[in-house]
């Protein structure tokens, strides 16, 4: 069944390739962007529903069946709101800031391998590219804070920028650990190195780095328990305090897209991306009938659905954290980032060096 889809897709691709390279790329970009934006919309809905059920509430349930049209209602509301530009602010930079944040949040998706073939740009320095793109997200924050011409926005921007810088280092070191195992910066190679069973995935040898990477990812996206940028219960919102209407909505979409990106990257780097946790030869014969058999085989085999499952799991974790942990105090965040996570990554990189030298386990041969 899946083969037909892939075949059809390939024929489609060949046809589009015939057209010319630019429209073909644009079509591919749309094919990534549109599902992502829909996912972002329903991620906000899922967040409200899941947190509601964790706190014994109902959550959105009025707009559409079970509140399923709520994201669109919110979108329409934000779209028709007035965009207020503060007096004496720099209008160009004020409007540029959300655009930068949005662009950078989606540009990183260019190198994400959804499947062994489905990748927009299979470049050799893919991981570096992702690091570069995520490190650019900070400009949206700083420019937004500065261009608002408001001290609250500026202080909020400084607060979140300092946090992002601190956790970016820990994140980079965690990625160094992944690169040391894979010996490649290409994301497809990093997935292929994890081929085998669940225990060949990199979360086993790199468990501390995986935890640190995910904590740093939560901090980078300004999510609870590190959401000092927003901090809705104790202070006015951070760098985007002066933004209204679509300006705010664009920041919001970028934040959720970044959360999905971190989840996808965790799935790729530490949990084998599109690899299946089962191996085919360990299964008996399932011959019930052809269709069911094929269906089961399709689900057991490697494929994009495993990537989606894993990503969805980590996306759920983001929401789970928000409903579970109390917010960190700011100095505690800084201490955790600089004095605990960074030394821990350095220690584990050293341990990993020993692993590689003594060729331990199935990962370092």
């Amino acid at each position, binding site marked *: 069944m899946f083969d037909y889809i892939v075949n059809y897709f390939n024929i489609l691709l060949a046809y589009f390739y015939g057209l010319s390279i630019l429209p073909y790329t644009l079509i591919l970009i749309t094919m990534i962007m549109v599902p992502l934006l829909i996912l972002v919309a329903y991620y906000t809905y899922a967040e409200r529903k899941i947190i509601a059920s964790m706190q014994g509430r109902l959550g959105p349930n009025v707009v559409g069946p079970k509140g399923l049209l709520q994201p669109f209602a919110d979108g329409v509301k934000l779209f028709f709101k007035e965009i207020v530009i503060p007096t004496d602010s720099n209008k160009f930079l004020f409007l540029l800031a959300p655009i930068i944040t949005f662009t950078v949040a989606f540009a990183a998706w260019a190198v994400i391998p959804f499947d062994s073939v489905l990748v927009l740009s299979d470049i050799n320095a893919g991981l570096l590219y992702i690091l570069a793109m995520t*490190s650019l997200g900070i400009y949206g924050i700083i420019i937004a804070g500065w261009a608002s011409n408001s001290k609250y926005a500026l202080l909020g921007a400084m607060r979140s*920028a300092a946090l992002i810088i601190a956790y970016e280092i820990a994140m980079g070191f965690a990625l160094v650990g992944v690169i040391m195992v894979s010996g490649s910066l290409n994301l497809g190679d990093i997935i292929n190195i994890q081929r085998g069973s669940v225990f060949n995935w990199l979360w086993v040898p790199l468990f501390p780095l995986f935890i640190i990477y995910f904590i740093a990812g939560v901090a980078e996206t300004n999510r609870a328990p590190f959401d000092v940028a927003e901090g809705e219960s104790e202070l006015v919102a951070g760098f985007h305090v002066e933004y209204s209407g679509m300006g705010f909505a664009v920041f919001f979409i970028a934040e959720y897209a970044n959360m999905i990106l971190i989840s996808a990257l965790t799935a790729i780097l530490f949990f084998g991306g599109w690899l299946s946790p089962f191996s085919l030869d360990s299964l008996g014969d399932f011959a019930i009938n052809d269709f069911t058999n094929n269906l089961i085989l399709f689900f057991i085999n490697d494929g994009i659905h495993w990537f989606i499952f894993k990503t969805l799991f980590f996306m759920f974790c983001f929401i789970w954290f928000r409903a579970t942990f109390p917010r960190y105090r700011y100095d505690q965040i800084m201490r955790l980032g600089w004095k605990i996570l960074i030394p821990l990554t350095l220690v584990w990189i050293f341990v990993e060096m020993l692993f590689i030298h003594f060729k331990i386990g199935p990962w370092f041969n």
Partner: protein
Amino acid sequence: MDIISILFYLVTSVVIISSIGLIVVNNTVHAALLLVLIFFNTAVLWLMMNAEFLAIVLVLVYVGAVLVLFLFVIMLLDIQVKKTVSKKLYLLFSIIISTIMFAELYLVIFYHDFQNSSVKIINQNISNTYEIGLLLFTEHVFSFEVTAFILLVAIIAAIAINMTDRQRALRQDPGKQILETKEKRLKILKDDEI
């Protein structure tokens, strides 16, 4: 003119215009943002020369880290825009410095044989990133390690400068915070004690 050369002229003109803007603009934050634009376009130029590793590292290090710190400092300082300073002295120095730099660049570009030097393509099949890594850790390993050591010294120096007046700083002691107990901090008062 093919699309590559159109792109090249576009990118270089952006670089040149924003470099001029960087010098002319009064607002320091705008100047820093123009520098971001210059680095970004330089990265595009390097990408067009198939130096993908250098391009991405330029964005990662200079745009993503160094200039963020620049912006941090500039935004937190309260810089007054000076209006009427006699600019004649500045003009003199800038003419001297730019003449020297132009002469140097001219000498480098026109008297250096680029065809027969420096760039050795070891193997067409392996990627740029791989090749740079190989060269860094074999041929240039000494200078690589020395650079790393200098950076380490710089980090330690920066921390040491920052650590001087510990008494005045309002610091939390995390050890003390962890050792605090409920019994030490909380006291339940009865009605008659109030």
